[in-house]
């Protein structure tokens, strides 16, 4: 074991060294797209020359993402606890939760810049980026507790609150920490995106935006590397903390009882309908309240009603609708194509992972690192390499869906006990039979989960590419509308992109339920 681990480490180091050497040669020779990929030494030299610029920008980004991370997580954990204590509240807030999960940060950034001032848009976008991940990790962690320990507390007259305090919260800490780990890079991405869309003098996003026109690839790569480093470090900090802590929290024996979610069917039809109404209207109520609370004039800040007016009641409505539909016509096909390609690739690779485990072992760390890369900082680099055509959009979409889907699928297959995986082999099954009987059924539920989870990312990827590179679709519409001060359109694009990803999410969910029920499988959250 120790030996194979060291040899794995050695191999990784060797691969890294080879990669850097190839990178250096390719970069020095200007082989890729006429110097779009500079050598590592050139990037580092540029970083050294620019060293005076970085501290201010880094500090601004770290400050905004740190504050947003803190605020977002405090809210998320409090919400998670409240949801677990009151399933009714969870159901009421489902619409809001899904909307926050689904909102492509790039579409929200201009709105936040319009309605808030100073650091607030950056902090808010960072907080929004962490909320959903941490909240759902908290709910999952608090829900999967040892029912026998809870019985014990109850046997001494303890109620729900004491069970929460003595059993569930401490038991949920590993889950919450792994939530924080995944959320941390999201905060950095959120802060950079808001910097990108909203003026100000400091921040890596601002720096990147200012450097776009200078035609200096080494500078862009430098900023991309620094942003990735910050996001990666924030991930690593929580990875270390959680591996330190989770040593003592694993349950000593396996608990087989799943805690029942009380109250799912405790109400009559009419009350259930009422809750559903609340679920759907609440996001719109919050949107409306947000505008009223910030006190921004109607001209700039559109309420749900304002957006409706803009799209259907004004003189210019027909033109606005035309622009929107044209943009959707450009964005959706490419987003769908990229997603399907990314997911299919991830699925194929994951189900065949049992055939070449060595490759997967080496590849997983790479996949994990890409998860932490701030997309917005990388897009300009891809544009440098791939140009401004559709291929850049497609590649970005494929990569943002492929990596998370792959990680999820592999982890799903890894949950199947080795003995189950080995069983067909023991009866002399061929590799294909084994795959058909075990790997594919094991991975299928995770494929659906991955599809649902990557919809907003795919939309975000396409829109960033459109904004920065191709000048088409929703991303471009958003960018142009900012220039023309077409506030109605900014709000419309934001609302439509959120609604769209919620709609696709539910569409996948319905297909998923049907399919899995027919195959007699369970869906995963």
């Amino acid at each position: 074991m120790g030996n194979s681990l060291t040899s794995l480490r050695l191999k990784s180091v060797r691969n890294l060294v080879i990669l850097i050497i190839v990178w250096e040669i390719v970069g020095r020779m200007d082989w890729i797209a006429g110097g779009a990929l500079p050598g590592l030494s050139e990037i580092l030299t540029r970083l050294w020359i620019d060293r005076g610029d970085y501290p201010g920008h880094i500090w601004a980004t770290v400050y905004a993402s740190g504050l947003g991370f803190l605020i977002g997580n405090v809210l998320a954990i409090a919400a998670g606890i409240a949801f677990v204590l009151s399933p009714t509240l969870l159901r009421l807030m489902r619409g809001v939760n899904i909307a926050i999960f689904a909102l492509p940060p790039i579409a929200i950034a201009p709105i936040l810049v319009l309605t808030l001032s100073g650091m607030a848009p950056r902090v808010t976008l960072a907080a929004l980026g962490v909320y959903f991940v941490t909240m759902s990790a908290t709910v999952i962690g608090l829900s999967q507790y040892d029912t026998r320990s809870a019985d014990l507390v109850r046997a001494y007259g303890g109620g729900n609150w004491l069970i929460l305090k003595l059993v569930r919260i401490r038991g949920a800490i590993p889950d919450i920490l792994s939530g924080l780990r995944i959320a941390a890079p999201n905060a950095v991405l959120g802060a950079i995106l808001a910097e990108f869309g909203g003026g100000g003098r400091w921040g890596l996003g601002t720096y990147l935006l200012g450097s776009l026109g200078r035609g200096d690839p080494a500078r862009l790569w430098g900023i991309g590397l620094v942003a990735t480093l910050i996001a990666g470090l924030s991930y690593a900090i929580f990875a270390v903390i959680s591996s330190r802590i989770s040593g003592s929290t694993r349950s000593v024996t396996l608990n087989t009882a799943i805690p029942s979610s009380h109250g799912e069917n405790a109400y009559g039809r009419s009350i259930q309908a009422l809750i559903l109404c609340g679920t759907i209207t609440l996001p719109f109520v919050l949107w409306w309240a947000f505008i009223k609370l910030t006190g921004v004039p109607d001209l700039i800040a559109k309420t749900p009603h304002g957006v409706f007016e803009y799209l259907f009641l004004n003189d210019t409505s027909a033109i606005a609708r035309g622009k929107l539909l044209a943009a959707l016509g450009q964005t959706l096909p490419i987003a769908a194509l990229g997603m399907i390609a990314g997911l299919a690739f991830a699925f194929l690779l994951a189900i065949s992972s049992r055939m070449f485990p060595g490759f997967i072992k080496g590849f997983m760390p790479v996949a994990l690192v890409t998860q932490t890369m701030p997309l917005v900082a990388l897009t300009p680099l891809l544009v440098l390499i791939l140009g401004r055509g559709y291929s850049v959009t497609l590649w970005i979409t494929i990569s943002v869906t492929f990596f998370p889907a792959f990680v999820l699928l592999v982890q799903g297959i890894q949950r199947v006990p080795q003995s189950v995986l080995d069983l067909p082999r023991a009866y002399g099954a061929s590799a294909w039979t084994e795959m058909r009987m075990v790997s594919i059924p094991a991975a299928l539920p995770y494929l659906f989960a991955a599809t649902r989870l990557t919809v907003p990312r795919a939309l975000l990827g396409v829109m960033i590419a459109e904004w920065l590179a191709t000048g088409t679709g929703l991303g471009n519409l958003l960018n142009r509308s900012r220039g023309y001060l077409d506030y109605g359109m900014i709000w419309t694009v934001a609302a439509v992109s959120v609604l769209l990803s919620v709609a696709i999410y539910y569409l996948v969910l319905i297909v998923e339920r049907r399919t899995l029920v027919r195959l007699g499988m369970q869906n995963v959250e």
Partner: protein
Amino acid sequence: MPRQPAGISLRSVGKTYRGRGKTVEALKDMNLECAPGSFTALIGPSGCGKSTAMRVALGLEGFDSGEVLISGQTPGQATAGGVTGVAFQDAALLPWRSVAKNVALPLEVLGRDVSKFSAEIAQLIDLVGLKGYENALPGELSGGMRQRVSIARSLITSPEVLFMDEPFGALDQIRRRQMNVELQRIWSETKSTALLVTHGIDEAIFLADQVVVMHADPGRVVDIIDVPFARPRHPDLFSNPEFHALTDRIAKVLHGE
């Protein structure tokens, strides 16, 4: 008939689990009377409702009909008042708490000042033979040691009524015998009313004043056998002919002969 304040009293208790499609009549017209300070063993085939009866008596599970009284109180009043102590089949220790802190858990639930009980905690840990392991985490103990922690925990509140659901299920035969002897000693010192759910007939006879036999479908009491042996009982009893005769008699009832 004047009602006596019995230790544990279940009268014509009915309890049906309603699952998806099928219903299980876990208890039907279940009667159980345990005199204060007595030791009762509850025995029966797997799935006959032993655990259900205990969970009903602890207020962990509601019931459909009948009456349940613990020291003259409802289960809810009794548990919240610290009258009861409980040890489950699984030790159910919190993995992040030390042995001493796990033993102290019921005190915390009942809102008592844990710091005032440090002497009792140490004494109980010593009693179950775990002296020196006060600060160990459950993950560092063997299955049998964890079980003993859970016994110590069930005694920390000096309960009037003690419930045990197969507390020695995870132990080997020799350890089990040792723990039986230990439990008898501990119980005779505490003077509590004890209800022990078990699968071992010899264990039931060795420890109990009365052995209550249950059958399944629906879960009900089919026989109550008094155990005549004088206390304190010596481990030699396990090889006593009268002991074997009683074991055979209970086995017959258990298997429905």
